[in-house]
């Protein structure tokens, strides 16, 4: 399956393949170590950039409470931190 961003497609497909193999061979047998962490980091970096460019970041953050997600969006937080820093530096 292709990613919403063509650039991220090879990274996504590589991660998906690693994940399904790991899920079937390790996770279901009770193993807690994540074999695919490095691949996921690369895919996620690409994806977060694409989500920001497509303007989806806020929409995702707004929808999280309704589904009980434990995640916070670090892109959105990064924007907030930047805005906060600017406000601080603009103070007399």
């Amino acid at each position, binding site marked *: 399956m292709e990613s919403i961003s063509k650039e991220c497609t090879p990274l996504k497909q590589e991660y998906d393949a690693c994940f*399904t193999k790991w*899920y079937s061979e390790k996770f279901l047998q009770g193993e*807690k170590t994540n074999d695919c962490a490095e691949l996921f980091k690369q895919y*996620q970096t690409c994806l977060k950039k694409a989500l920001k460019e497509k303007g989806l970041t806020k929409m*995702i953050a707004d929808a999280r409470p309704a589904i009980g997600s434990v995640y916070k969006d670090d892109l959105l937080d990064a924007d907030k931190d930047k805005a906060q820093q600017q406000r601080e530096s603009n103070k007399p």
Partner: protein
Amino acid sequence: MRLFEATHVFKHDWDTVSLANWRKYPNDKTPHVRHVEVLNQEIDPETGILRTERLIMVKQNVPTLLKKLFGGDASYVLEYSEVDPRQKSMVMQSQNMTFSNILSVGEHILYQPDPDNLSHTQFVQSAQLKASTALCRFANKVEDMCWNRFKDNAQVGKLGLEQVVSKILAERQAVVMAQVAE
């Protein structure tokens, strides 16, 4: 508000069905699901529970009234899930993001071993569809149309999962045959 509830038993064990869930897309029964992205995924080091957040992009033909109200036929859904490999439970909660000010669709899914036959898997699905009162006289009609579409998608969704399960079983069979041949 419309409520949708369905239960189904897949005649396969929970390990296989939960794996099929992760391999579900793409499949030819559910062409409306165009993209599935993993936003976050991690294992809890203590409980071993797998937590995942996914972004799903759906595009399908919709009645003209819906297309006009929603401004198009593409939508994004956010999904959060937890998989417990010891308890053998997979719980998923999803919510539409696009045009959520007009219509809210929240869905809850549970996969667990069938209490009547532990080598089978019980699938319990429930959803709530609510149109905004701002739609006034359209609200009921919009809910009806969306409920019907949800029901259709749920049906092909099950068929899609069965298809993926068959594929997984065929792959396992091929591995066994290759080992026997050696």
